[in-house]
């Protein structure tokens, strides 16, 4: 359905060579105005909120004092949450690559006539609510569930060991929720790989592993990069998995931001939000430069 179409968005076709048209500005005016008023202006107001004097409140109003200290105080108070968020997001992204690559590869090259069915199965989780699916992991990882029982039987898990309310559960939930965003772009990249290139590899006496490393993997890089971004960014900002599957010591930045807003500490919440966005932007830029896929932007 639509998800795969999004991922496979091809660069724009050659534009008609006419002069800059007035129609273009007409077509663009409303949507651009909307993005300006409800995306750019809010980001500016987020930054300015983060510089308010935290002594104020929603009722009494905040004084704009250029209070940069908000940033130092949230960095000092929530350093653990920040590291944990990026740690969990990185772990979930790696798990998504490890699980998603074989699946995407199988769909692209081994599924035969089952290809469409497998693709529908990949997007099937989207057919029902994100929250309800995450809640069902509470049951699957719960102490009474057979999965925990089996692990206890195999002595992987101690007799008093838990799966739910642990970092493992949070990363499992994050991996589960964002896995389709890894599989779909990987599949679109892999599907474009000409199988004859892989045959050529083996004709030239490369082992299957060498063919994979030298031919298939490099050709699937655009999908891998897109998939990494599509899983890492939402995972780093998520708080649903940490809240439903974790414990108070597995809280992520999202939990803190949400709690700070709820308790009315707007300047601190805004400062933390800006920090999250800034770290992500920097990481994404460095990553894209490293991966040599600038054209993705």
């Amino acid at each position: 359905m639509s998800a795969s179409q999004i991922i496979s968005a091809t660069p724009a076709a050659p534009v008609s060579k006419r002069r800059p048209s007035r129609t273009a500005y007409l077509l663009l005016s409303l949507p651009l105005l909307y993005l300006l008023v409800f995306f750019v202006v809010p980001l500016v107001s987020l930054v300015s909120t983060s510089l308010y004097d935290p002594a104020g409140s929603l009722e009494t109003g905040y004084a704009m004092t250029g209070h940069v200290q908000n940033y130092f105080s949230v960095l000092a108070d929530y350093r653990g949450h920040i590291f944990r968020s990026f740690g969990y997001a990185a772990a979930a992204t790696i798990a998504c690559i490890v699980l998603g690559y074989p699946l995407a590869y199988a769909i692209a090259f081994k599924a035969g006539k089952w290809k469409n069915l497998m693709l529908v199965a990949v997007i099937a989780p989207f057919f029902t609510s994100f929250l309800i699916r995450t809640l069902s992991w509470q049951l699957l990882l719960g102490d009474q569930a057979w999965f925990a029982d089996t692990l206890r039987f195999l002595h992987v898990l101690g007799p008093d060991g838990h799966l739910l309310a642990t970092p493992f559960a949070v990363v499992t939930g994050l991996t589960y929720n964002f896995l389709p965003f890894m599989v779909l772009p990987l599949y679109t990249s892999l599907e474009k790989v000409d199988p004859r290139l892989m045959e050529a590899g083996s004709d030239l006496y490369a082992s299957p592993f060498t063919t994979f490393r030298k031919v298939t993997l490099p050709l699937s890089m655009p999908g891998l990069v897109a998939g990494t971004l599509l899983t890492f960014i939402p995972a780093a900002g998520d708080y649903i998995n940490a809240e439903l599957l974790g414990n108070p010591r597995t809280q992520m930045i999202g939990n803190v931001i949400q709690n700070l807003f709820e308790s009315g500490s707007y300047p601190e919440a805004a400062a933390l939000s800006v920090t999250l966005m800034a770290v992500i932007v920097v990481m994404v830029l460095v990553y894209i430069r490293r991966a040599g896929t600038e054209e993705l932007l």
Partner: protein
Amino acid sequence: MTRAGKWLGDHLVLGAGLLVLLYLLTPIFVVVLMSFNDPASRISYSFDGFTLDNWRQPCQPNGLCESVVLSVEIALLATLFATLLGTLMAFAIVRHRFRGRAGVNVMTFLPMASPEIVMGSSLLALFVSSGFAGALGFWTILVAHILFCLSFVVVTVKARLAGLDPRLEQAAMDLYANEAQTFRKVTFPLVFPGILAAALLSFSLSFDDFIITNLNAGQEVTFPMYVWGAAQRGVPPQINVIGTAMFFLALALVVAGELRARRAARV
């Protein structure tokens, strides 16, 4: 490589893929199963017995169906506006030359690349600092949903438009159709599947959104917010009924679309 080795290699990958699919689908089985659960207590984490009562009385938990109705209303309106605005933008980007193209592309890409919590908190910051703190509710939710659907519509419609064979439109013009006729009879019908896909995607994104909505909803309770609230108190099995119904409805839509596409391809 030996033939046995090759067989093993092929099926190993396929087997691993199927295992990963199992991981993706297991929670859905749980949702379907739990919709028939007859819970022994209010905070039951296990399947205690089979019943059809939940399906007979899906609206029994207080406020559940109201929240579904609210979510559907918001999703319909958000879909309408986002699809309209996004389609205009996609046409401009693919079909016209204008200054600041790179800037426009970045502007459509950025909302998709920002974490939900950041987008939600910046909208809240705007609403609060412009004096709308007391007016958070239906309209602020709608504004937020149109925003995050918009970029997805642009990307989806853009992909469809870019894949269009320009010769079809040239042929129409050669046959003396004017620009309006060409658009109505050729371009629009060809782009329509993309617009439809974008609308379906918008609907599901809007219906399912929690993080952004939770920050900007005021006193309103959408369906995901209802689920969130219930998760703190004990989940009524009717929530799984709604989840199961959604799943099969969406599945039916996709299967119907696929069948239609196949039939069209055969003709």
